[in-house]
């Protein structure tokens, strides 16, 4: 196989892509960018897009490009609209409506009054700054130094009367020092020039102010180069706090490229990793790089990806397959959906490199049917990749041929388990089977099969381009790189955050997620979905990596992170998850099928106030038995939510049992509604809504609830406008 000239061919391709983009005015037109993803659309993005389209057409302007992109993962502020005027700080607006779109268009895009300041994303600013300096955060090399310098800088700016024109911010460690091979902190990223300054001393600050801020001349002696594949995300979004506390390696293109445009993907170095690998690498060197990078599977198990690739490569077989696991069954997780909708090509490139390594001719993406838009985008991406010769025969003239087929799941959580997934692709019932043999030895139709999660694959091009050493510089001893978490529940900023491994739960919840909604009290964070556990407040300083979370009694899992507050009952949550796994148990083995049922019955009793203390021992005994005796991961982890809440929130169980009380007022059967005679004005509203008519009282007289008949539906509580009904 002649591998010379592959990269050259790639760059020729890229030149064609660039010239097409140039023709569209991609580089010099004013860009209005509207998010387009399941979540964006549910928030009304399509109407906003149509509104802009109408206004642009009506204005007759041809120098404006209306651009679609995937979602940035900032769910709570969607729809998000970006206005990118060449040479200006990119402006992002949040929670845009058709009405707001009109305002953005008339005053910011058409008019000369600048951005509509009070609609800017996150409303953290009341003006547009001349410059923004985002200092690196707490990396391994620079503890505190950046913060100190930033404070001095701010003071100097204030003294010179520039305090309100220049913004100082702090972000996450972007791995700048690791890139340079030597510490360069204090360092910062500067908008709108999008450059990095490093090794900044206090004595340099005046020069930065005189030259950079006042005269708009860069201080070139402080400039450090930082050429990483994910930089462009920071270029677009680095000025928004929600994003500059993240390191976007796998989500780098989400919210930047049009997921339906292969040209844009290529512009941001798409398929360069594959071309490079085809030209320079052998299976052994690729595996070596993956091993060096320390990448571990992001699908939940955390198995070292390099080992998996090597095992499949070494396995004997004429035919081999690579499978992308996009089943994303954890209820409460949506990282993979966002990635597939916002950047489908990265997954294809990851599979292409994986396929090349094990010499597979064919790859499958197993995706859940509940993700219709992700399916559509993937189908489109596969078609385009074929057209452009990145899939199909003799890719880039390398002699390697590879193609990808989609297979849809049909709504069974257990099919995320790799052996069940294989059966499902084969068209059978999705039942797991004992391992070994592992799929890497005997998978699809008995052939060696390499199964990787979506996010795992999205890391592959990053490792190949930015180098395994650099990748391994991020994270902790045994967990390298970043992890995407899906923040949901009682948190202010719901959405996706990608942070370096080793970030604390506290930072993720309070810094990235903006803390608990409605100023309620934090109670627990649930990680790992139905296989994971709940961690209480005293574990907030736990860092996220595979080992620490396991030690704390939960797991990393695939990245779902549900935040619970004082209104959530931990027994109820445990019951919720067990109900889920019980329902999803495939029924093949008894401990899981029967055991989870028995545990669920006990939990049901406890939430009804009929539990005994003996039940707690039973739960623990049963739980540990199911963990040991079940055939597959579903059963082996199903008791975790129960066991972890028993460990960390035992008091709450006891309260349900001994005092027949649910402290969070969640468990319906233990609730009691009472009318407070001092507050009731006798408006009769409650009596009219009560479905069982158990509230008595005549107009303008105090009402009363017949506790015997009350079914605890809470309708009266919701209805009373005088706050006269107490929930006890």
């Amino acid at each position, binding site marked *: 196989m002649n591998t010379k000239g592959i990269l050259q061919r790639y760059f020729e391709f890229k030149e064609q892509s660039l010239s097409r983009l140039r023709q569209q005015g991609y580089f010099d037109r004013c860009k209005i960018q509207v998010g387009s993803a399941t979540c964006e659309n549910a*928030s009304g993005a399509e109407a906003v897009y149509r509104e802009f389209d109408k206004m642009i057409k009506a204005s007759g302007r041809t120098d404006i490009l209306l651009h679609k992109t995937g979602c940035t993962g900032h769910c709570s502020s969607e729809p998000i609209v970006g206005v990118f005027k060449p040479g200006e700080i990119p402006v992002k607006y949040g929670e845009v409506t058709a009405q707001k779109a009109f305002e953005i268009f008339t005053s910011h895009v058409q008019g000369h009054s600048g951005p509509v300041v009070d609609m800017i994303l996150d409303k953290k600013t009341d003006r547009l700054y001349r410059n923004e300096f985002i200092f690196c955060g707490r990396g391994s090399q620079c503890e505190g130094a950046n913060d100190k310098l930033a404070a001095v800088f701010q003071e100097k700016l204030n003294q010179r009367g520039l305090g309100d024109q220049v913004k100082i911010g702090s972000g996450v460690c972007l791995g700048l020092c690791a890139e340079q091979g030597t510490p360069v902190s204090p360092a910062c990223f500067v908008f709108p020039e999008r450059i990095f300054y490093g090794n900044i001393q206090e004595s340099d600050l005046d020069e930065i102010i005189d030259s950079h801020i006042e005269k708009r001349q860069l201080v070139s002696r402080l400039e450090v180069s930082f050429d990483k594949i994910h930089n462009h995300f920071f270029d677009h979004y680095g000025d928004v706090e929600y994003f500059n506390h993240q390191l976007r390696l796998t989500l780098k293109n989400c919210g930047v490229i049009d997921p339906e445009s292969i040209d844009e993907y290529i512009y941001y170095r798409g398929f360069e990793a594959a071309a490079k690998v085809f030209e320079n690498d052998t299976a052994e060197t690729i595996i070596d790089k993956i091993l060096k990078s320390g990448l571990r599977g992001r699908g939940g198990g955390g198995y070292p990806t390099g080992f998996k690739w090597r095992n499949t490569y070494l396995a004997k077989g004429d035919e081999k397959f690579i499978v992308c696991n996009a089943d994303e069954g954890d*209820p409460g997780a949506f990282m993979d959906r966002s990635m597939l909708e916002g950047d489908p090509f990265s997954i294809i490139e990851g599979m292409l490199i994986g396929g090349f390594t094990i010499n597979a001719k064919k790859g499958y993406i197993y995706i859940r049917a509940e993700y219709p838009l992700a399916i559509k985008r993937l189908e489109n991406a596969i078609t385009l990749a074929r057209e452009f010769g990145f899939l199909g025969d003799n890719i880039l003239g390398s002699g390697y041929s590879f193609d990808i087929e989609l297979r849809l799941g049909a709504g069974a959580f257990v099919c995320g388990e790799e052996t069940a997934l294989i059966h499902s692709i084969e068209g059978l019932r*999705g039942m797991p089977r004992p391992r070994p043999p592992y799929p890497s030895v005997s998978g699809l139709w008995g052939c060696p099969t390499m199964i990787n999660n979506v996010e795992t694959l999205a890391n592959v091009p990053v490792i190949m381009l930015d180098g395994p050493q650099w990748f391994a510089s991020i994270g902790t001893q045994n967990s390298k790189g970043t992890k995407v978490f899906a923040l949901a529940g009682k948190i202010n900023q719901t959405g996706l955050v990608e942070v370096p491994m080793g970030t604390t739960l506290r930072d993720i919840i309070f810094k990235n997620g903006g803390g608990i909604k409605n100023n309620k009290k934090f109670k627990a964070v649930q990680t790992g979905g139905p296989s994971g556990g709940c961690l209480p407040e005293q574990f907030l300083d736990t860092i996220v990596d595979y080992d620490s979370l396991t030690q704390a009694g939960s797991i990393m899992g695939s990245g779902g992170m549900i935040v619970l507050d004082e209104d959530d009952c931990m027994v109820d949550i445990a019951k919720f998850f067990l109900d889920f796994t019980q329902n999803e148990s495939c029924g093949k083995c008894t401990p899981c099928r029967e055991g989870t049922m028995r545990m669920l019955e006990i939990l049901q009793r406890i939430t009804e106030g009929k539990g005994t203390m003996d039940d707690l021992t039973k739960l623990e005994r049963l739980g540990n038995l199911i963990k040991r005796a079940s055939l597959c991961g579903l059963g082996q982890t199903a008791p975790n939510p129960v066991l972890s809440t028993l460990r960390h929130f035992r008091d709450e169980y006891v309260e349900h049992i001994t005092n027949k009380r649910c402290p969070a007022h969640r468990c319906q059967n233990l609730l009691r509604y009472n009318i407070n005679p001092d507050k009731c004005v006798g408006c009769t509203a409650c009596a009219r809504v009560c479905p069982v008519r158990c509230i008595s009282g005549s107009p303008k007289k105090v009402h009363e609830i017949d506790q015997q008949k009350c079914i605890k539906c809470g309708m009266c509580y919701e209805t009373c406008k005088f706050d006269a009904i107490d929930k006890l």
Partner: protein
Amino acid sequence: MDVSNKEKFTLSSELIEYIDSCKQQAHFKSFLINVLQRIQDIHGYLPQCLMEETALRLGVPTAKVYGVATFYHMFRLEPQGKHTINICLGTACYVKGAQRVLDAFKSHLNIDIDETTEDLMFTLKAARCVGTCGLAPVVMIDNDVYAKVTPEDVLTIITKYRQS
């Protein structure tokens, strides 16, 4: 709900063509789930006679076809309403009050989960996370997702579909 299951359907020529094209490929029996999905896309459920015809054409035992159809939650063996309302009861939606949204749908439509209204307009279903947890609680009707739904929104949503 027992009438239509006795109805006689035959596979459309398109589906037959699809099955034939599958049969050209390696491991063609693995396409069974895809075929069933397409049948359900057209009919809203899997009529028994069509499962039997599929078994015959694809060369898979009928028992296997039933086995698959009953294993996966997505397959319906009964006719469905014109619109399927999926109330997400995933974790994020659950803690954000999805149960109350579900109750509101139940009382407005006067049906329970997995039931269909008498006018065959709506089938009510519980879903396990549709992947927009950041906007919980969510409801997915056919392929459209509704965000941050409150019990008060429910009537408006239903009316919208009734009128269209």
